[in-house]
């Protein structure tokens, strides 16, 4: 296991270095951001002075070198818009996104797993057919549409839930979270379910397919012949065997949701990191964009490593190397 971690760490450094280079160069090609950021009423000497003071008039390799040196000192630049270090900005917004994603993943697993088991075990039953069709819908319908529909019915028509924003928060272990206040949960329901649509549908389909395959396996036939109840068979034996791909895919989905909850966060004005990145791109806030992309790369590598460890935990046959 140690070898795996060391290897992953080395790979990680290489990937981060390569990404930083590509991202930096691509963004550099967009030209001087001050031109877009500065008020058009600014006289050119102000724009020149600011450009020079931020080092944006230097050739690209000098700028990149400075960026690398600063990054190694833990400084990924100060946001042009928010007057804050970009990493601090991202981590400041991350709790909001994480609680949204965790909520969505819990919904997806709690609802999706049983539905998938049922749909896979009794594939011909009408309810299973319905579950399958709905899961196709869940995969293909875009998140913003789901979000808007939920807003129209639950907020505008029936006036049950707020249209967006994050509710009251409390400090839990030093982190602001809205998971433990009633107001917070009310605000979380609609965006949470919107974000859960995709992983829910994916879980249903994965589990359903897995169960259908396992159902034909010898151990299941024997179990049925012995008169084990379907619940016991599903819960104790089949479930463990279908969990391996589910854990892998959940890990990737988790990362994707954290990195790109952009649409849901935009529709619900949720103050998370996805909204931060989209606003930063719109405002040419270059340091934040670069820092965010690097953060996403690191996050995916960590998640992949965790998924590998979890897989070994779920299925002892998987060897870590």
């Amino acid at each position: 296991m140690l070898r795996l971690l060391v290897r992953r760490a080395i790979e990680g450094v290489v990937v981060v270095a390569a990404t930083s280079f590509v991202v930096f160069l691509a963004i550099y090609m967009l030209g001087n951001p001050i031109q877009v950021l500065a008020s058009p009423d600014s006289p050119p000497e102000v724009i020149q002075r600011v450009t020079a003071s931020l080092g944006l008039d230097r050739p690209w390799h000098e700028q990149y070198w400075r960026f690398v040196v600063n990054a190694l000192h833990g400084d990924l630049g100060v946001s042009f818009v928010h007057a804050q270090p970009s990493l601090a900005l991202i981590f400041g917004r991350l709790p909001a996104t994480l609680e949204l994603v965790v909520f969505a993943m819990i919904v997806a697993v709690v609802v999706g797993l049983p539905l998938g088991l049922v749909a896979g075990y009794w594939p011909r039953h009408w309810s299973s057919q319905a579950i399958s069709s709905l899961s196709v819908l869940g995969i293909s319908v875009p998140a913003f549409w789901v979000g808007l529909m939920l807003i129209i019915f639950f907020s505008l028509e029936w006036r049950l839930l707020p249209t967006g924003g994050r509710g009251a928060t409390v400090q839990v272990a030093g982190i602001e979270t809205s998971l433990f206040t009633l107001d917070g949960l009310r605000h979380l329901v609609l965006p949470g379910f919107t974000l859960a649509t995709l992983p829910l549908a994916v879980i249903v389909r994965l589990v359903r397919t897995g169960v259908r395959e396992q159902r034909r396996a010898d151990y299941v036939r024997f179990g049925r012949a012995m008169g084990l109840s379907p619940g016991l068979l599903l819960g104790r034996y089949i479930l463990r065997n279908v969990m391996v791909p589910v854990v892998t895919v959940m890990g990737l989905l988790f990362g994707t949701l954290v990195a790109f909850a952009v649409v849901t966060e935009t529709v619900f004005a949720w103050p998370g990191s996805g909204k931060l990145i989209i606003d930063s791109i719109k405002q040419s806030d270059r340091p934040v964009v670069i820092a965010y992309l690097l953060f996403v790369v690191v996050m995916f590598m960590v998640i992949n490593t965790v998924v590998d460890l979890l897989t070994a935990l779920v299925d002892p046959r998987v060897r870590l190397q």
Partner: protein
Amino acid sequence: MTSALTGSPLGIRQGPSVVKTNKLIAGLAGAALLLAGAPAFAQHLTIGSRAEITMDPHYQWLASNISYYRQIYGSLTVLGPNAQAEPMLADFRKVDDLNWEFKLKPGVKFQNGKPVTADDVVASLNRAKTLANAAASYAGALQTVSGIKAVDPQTVVITTERPNGNIPQQLTQIAIIPKEIADSATRDDFTSAKAAIGAGPYKVVRYRPGDRLELARFDDFAGPKPHWATVTYRFIADDAARVAALLGGDVDLIDYVPPADLARLQDDKRLAIHTRASDRVMYLIPDTSSDKSPFVADLDGKPLDKNPLKDVRVRKALSLALDRDALVRSVMDGAAQPANQTVPPGFIGYFDTLPASKFDLNEAKQLLASAGYPKGFQLTIHCTNDRYVNDARMCQAVGQMLSRLGLKMNVVTQPKSVFFTQMTNHSGDRGSLLLLAWGSAWTGDASGILNQTLHSYDKAKGMGTWNLGHYSNAEIDKMVQEANVAIDRDKKGGFQGAALKAAMEDYAQIPLIILRVINASKREVAFTPFADEATPATAARPADASAATPKK
């Protein structure tokens, strides 16, 4: 992505709701009522705002920031609804052509209880001018200022390098903070609201990045007392989400109502619309300087040996071919008005007697023929697609209208980062026909449009930075320079008007439309919209007299 969302949630009208509630939902709704408590409406206002605040008041020069700062920090002068500077913390007078005196009003206090002194003002102005790392520096707002001096504890004298009648306007942009904070505060101090101490009518209670800003009335504010005891700004950048928040009753007032939703919101009995002409005019910039323009060709795509846009008849033909009423109707959903000059009415320098822009396709075709292009030519129009309201749609509509004139049009829309990088390259190829908009609010006159977009490009003097067609006319330059040193309002307006008229008659720019400011609120809230799209809580009040008495 966001444009796809615009308007969608409004498709369903409010009707009598017959709902089968299950227990869970009923429970949640009950809880909601409990949480909401008694209606605190008369004292509390929630505003859904497109733009978030930058907490450090001297970091990013942006009109939306100043809309917040004018309530929290305050400034020596402040912009009124018509974008004219009014005294706020100080009264001002001109000492001589180069010196302005600002005398702090008696009793002006910071929110920490200390009086505002001339030293605080000097420290604030200097910080705004020199703050490190500020990408969109406020230094531009203090252009021509060469000296800032405290002559006594109440008085600051501002000296300019040339006569500049715009000094009171320029000082509306700079927030005033205590000297000790200006000298020592760090970025984090502002973000945590620790250093967010000003002399405005509202103080910061809490700032949640990306989400909301909570304000409470500062009762020792020297000026008029605002109605609302507490105000919450919620940052909702997405147009559809902002409108939904108003419809859902989560916010009381919103800014930047998307024109496409205007009609539906107007029909809603629970809401009120507050609208006026904005300070922003959309216009076309033809390439009037290149001998061969980069995006002009003959009908077969071969380069033309001369630039047709240098011919004033061709430029006039372009203008005549544009049906501005149709642009207002179809592109802006009625939320605009046709423009005949690039400064909106009511601003200094607006030329009253200039005739309205005419739409006459036949005359346009004749002009084009007499200029030697009876069959037209090929022309590309470049526009942004994420900078102004409906910019990409406007671009396409203009392209279509010009093809009716017989031109073979290409329409190119680009993200602003790409567009501005290419189009502000003064030494290379830019574009042949560009769509831009210019807001004149912070000067309240034509000086921005004249100095930056019509005066000949002159890098050394900092003139014509946004003159992207490199239009050059010595007579206009002269009038612009005379207007710049004229301090008397009428005299300045006379020069500016004359320069603007000359430029419009030469079709140096082709004005299209004046945008509208649209705010929407619950019916119970009245609001005075601002030309610069500011949405200060101080401009909102209860709509009817009965609600106006604060409930204790």
